[in-house]
């Protein structure tokens, strides 16, 4: 038999021959073939060269040592899995279900709303109020969620309040059935929405009735759903909030005195929001 007739069969064995991965009989056969076939000797040289090139590579090294942190990594992974599971729950809702240590309130808002048109409408409302809101420094929502006394404090300490509310979010998760429009809206803006959630819809209904079927108004309320959840979470605060809603005068007064032209109030509550918009 001509040596070349065996080449196809032999070629595939050449790497194994090079790696000493053949049994004695196969090894002998390949060796014998190589002695008489220059093409296969060339093939072997090609294999040797390729292996040399690969072995010349410096190993990529980790920039960190995971060994010391492996306990934490494992715990975090387990906790993360649990968190994911809760988010996937059909009933669950509030986007705030995620890990408590993270900025949980941020996560929900990144999720896309199922009602895109609502998001668009909310965005329009938000846009109208955006400039004034940002000037305000984002304190508006937090104020609404808090009681009257807290409102004043929030105006001065908006940042602290926001942080506190975001921390509360996780526990709120069980409330929500409604697709929150608010997800598409900036978290801060959503604050006013606390209204919708909080009263288990009662408040919302009232507000809608009061609000002359203004699309803007409805949208803004819906858009604010997220924060509502958070306010809901704080049992005591929720009650305060309801009382505050009934006390429109105080809010109106606050709005009037506010330099930003009532934007603050408009975002804060439905009624006040209407007031602000009308202004």
């Amino acid at each position: 038999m001509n040596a070349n007739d065996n080449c196809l069969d032999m070629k595939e064995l050449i790497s194994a021959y090079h790696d000493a991965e053949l049994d004695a009989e196969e090894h002998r056969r390949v060796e014998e073939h190589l002695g008489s076939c220059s093409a296969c000797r060339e093939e072997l040289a090609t294999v040797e060269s390729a292996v040399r090139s690969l072995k010349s590579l410096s190993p990529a090294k980790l920039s960190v040592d995971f060994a010391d942190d492996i306990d934490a990594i494992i715990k975090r992974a387990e906790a993360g899995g649990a968190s994911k599971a809760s988010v996937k729950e059909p009933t669950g809702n509030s986007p705030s279900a995620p890990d408590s240590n993270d900025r949980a309130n941020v996560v929900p808002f990144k999720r896309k709303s199922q009602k895109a048109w609502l998001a668009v409408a909310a965005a329009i409302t938000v846009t109208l109020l955006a400039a004034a809101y940002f000037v305000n420094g984002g304190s508006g929502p937090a104020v609404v969620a808090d009681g009257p006394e807290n409102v004043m404090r929030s105006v001065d300490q908006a940042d602290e309040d926001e942080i506190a509310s975001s921390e509360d979010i996780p526990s709120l998760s069980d409330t929500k059935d409604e697709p929150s429009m608010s997800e598409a809206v900036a978290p801060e803006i959503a604050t006013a929405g606390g209204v919708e959630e909080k009263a288990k819809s009662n408040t919302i209904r009232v507000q809608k009735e009061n609000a002359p079927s203004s699309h803007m108004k409805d949208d803004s309320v819906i858009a604010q759903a997220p924060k509502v959840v958070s306010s809901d979470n704080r049992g005591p605060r929720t009650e305060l909030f309801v009382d505050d809603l009934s006390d429109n005068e105080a809010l109106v007064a606050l709005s009037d005195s506010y330099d930003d032209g009532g934007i603050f109030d408009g975002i804060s509550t439905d009624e006040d929001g209407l007031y602000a918009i009308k202004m």
Partner: protein
Amino acid sequence: MTDEALVKKYRQARDMNSFKTLVRRYQNRIFNSAYHLIGNKEEAEEVVQDTFVKVHQGIDNFREDASFGAWVFRISHNLCMDILRNRKKRVAIQTIPLLARTGEETDGDFEAGVDDIADMTLEPAQVLDLKEESEIIEFSLKSLPEAQRAVLILHDLEGFQYQQIAEIIGASIGTVRSRLHYGRIKLKEMLDAYYAMKSNPVTPPITPR
């Protein structure tokens, strides 16, 4: 102390130091192989972490007569393949219509078609940018089909034997042998072509296959 002895010690006493020793032994090897297989350091780091999380979860089911190294690499290999698979799906969403239009030879093989697109080709200018020989070798390795690339990495970079590689990738020894050989041949062809292109940049672009 052998890997298997460390595993046993961890199982019996939940001695975290034993587990950490295993992590130290394998973390860089897993990172190196994952990086060369998926081509991204951040994802490779995630693979390392996820691998040890899975090792921890499954260590009680690990057979003592098995090779711990092969088991760990099997886990990391599967994680890498998941990443590559997801990547292909994303690429496919964008390219399948193009494939259908241009009549690429996919033979109905979804992944083969995507592979053709995913495989890289060096343009002359790119070759000139690869100043270091190691960069050219790494690029050539990345340009190989992933099935061949995986076997080359496991054998020539990580030093596993054919039988262990077969266990890691879930294939026969014959498949390992074949992929290893043709992968090496293809790698050398690419290297030769790139070196030729580097010395003569006007040479037309080279395709791996």
